[in-house]
């Protein structure tokens, strides 16, 4: 748990620097928001680890972050204000850098795959993305939303 908290803080710092370079937000100003995000993550991970419930960390973290930013939570306005200084893309960039750096270990498995499975996976990703978008669009149009 401590190890995870350290890694999260480190990535938080990297994201703040990215947020500074890419979105011109002063790192000192962005710090409280990032501390809040790291805190929510650590609490969520701890709940998923120590509670005897089979609820994954992703759901705990989403739930706590959501709860802390709804009007029923004390200080929610401040929390929303601080966390909004961190651009969501700035957090995702370091994550995808780690994803890229871990790819080497999958390349040999990938080379062993046949061409058919590559085509099928492209079709599967296209299908899931496009159908969901089209279904959402149909409902929005029926409702006359846009």
């Amino acid at each position, binding site marked *: 748990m401590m190890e995870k908290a350290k890694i999260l803080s480190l990535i938080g710092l990297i994201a703040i620097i990215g947020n500074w370079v890419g979105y011109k937000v002063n790192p000192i100003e962005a710090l409280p928001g990032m501390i809040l995000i790291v805190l929510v993550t650590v609490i969520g991970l701890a709940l998923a680890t120590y509670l005897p419930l089979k609820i*994954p960390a992703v759901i705990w973290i989403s739930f706590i972050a959501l709860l802390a930013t709804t009007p029923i939570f004390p200080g929610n306005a401040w929390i929303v204000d601080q966390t909004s200084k961190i651009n969501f893309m700035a957090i995702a960039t370091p994550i*995808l850098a780690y994803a*890229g750096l871990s790819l*080497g270990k999958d390349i040999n498995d990938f080379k062993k795959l046949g061409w058919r499975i590559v085509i099928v*996976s492209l079709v*599967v990703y296209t299908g899931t993305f496009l159908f969901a978008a089209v279904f959402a669009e149909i409902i929005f149009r029926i409702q006359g939303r846009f």
Partner: protein
Amino acid sequence: MKNSVKLHVIVLAFVVAGEWIGAKQFNIGIGTIALFPMLYVLIWGAIVSWPKFKLMSDKQMKHAATVLGISFMLFVAKLGTMLGPSLPKIFEAGVSLAFQEVGHVIGTIAIGLPIAILLGMKREAIGATFSIDREPNLAIIAEKYGADSPEGRGALGVYVCGTVFGAIYLALLAGFLGSLGILHPISLAMGAGVGSGSMMAAASGALAVTFPNDAEDIALFAAAANLITTILGTYICVFFSLPVTARLYNWLEPKLGRNKLSIDKGGDKS
């Protein structure tokens, strides 16, 4: 410890360089392709970790994968803080959010399965097309058919493809579809919530670059759709997607299949 310092320093350097370059859009005639920091660092990372270059050890790459799993939680927390203040907006779009989930479920199977069968795949097609085959889905298929079954191999194949190029492919697709102007950015954002972290991040990032004015809402609805897929996905897969895909396979295979008897007997590795 030494391993991880090198890893984090590389990531920091990538992030600074990537964010400094910033987002670019390329016109390819019928639409545009969005390129942005997430994609640059992903590709640079893939180059640095390419086995032939021997710049990174297996241990470091495994460590990067561990850090990836933990760091994704930060992204989840950030998206969560965007959900709280916008709950009324999300409930207003509730029907669309419910139906996009149906779209995710049907969309994986509806085109994937017939094409897999037409290409000559046998029972691998079931594992390959019942879901987008991320970790939880692999567990489901392993439990039902065994990890080394044809179904398990199909699922693992799509899993590996997804890891290697899923995020890049979905980002390019999302940016391109967005630039065509047929579908609304919010509908596309819901589509981006496919239930895989890096794919969702990259696809919603591409949409945010394509529609800078809607960036906040795009992140919001991609996050909401992704959360629904994460919560319901396992149950839907066990009770609907997998049994339905298996039945559809039994029905479609005799109609569309070819090279009968050849592939199941180990004639083809795919």
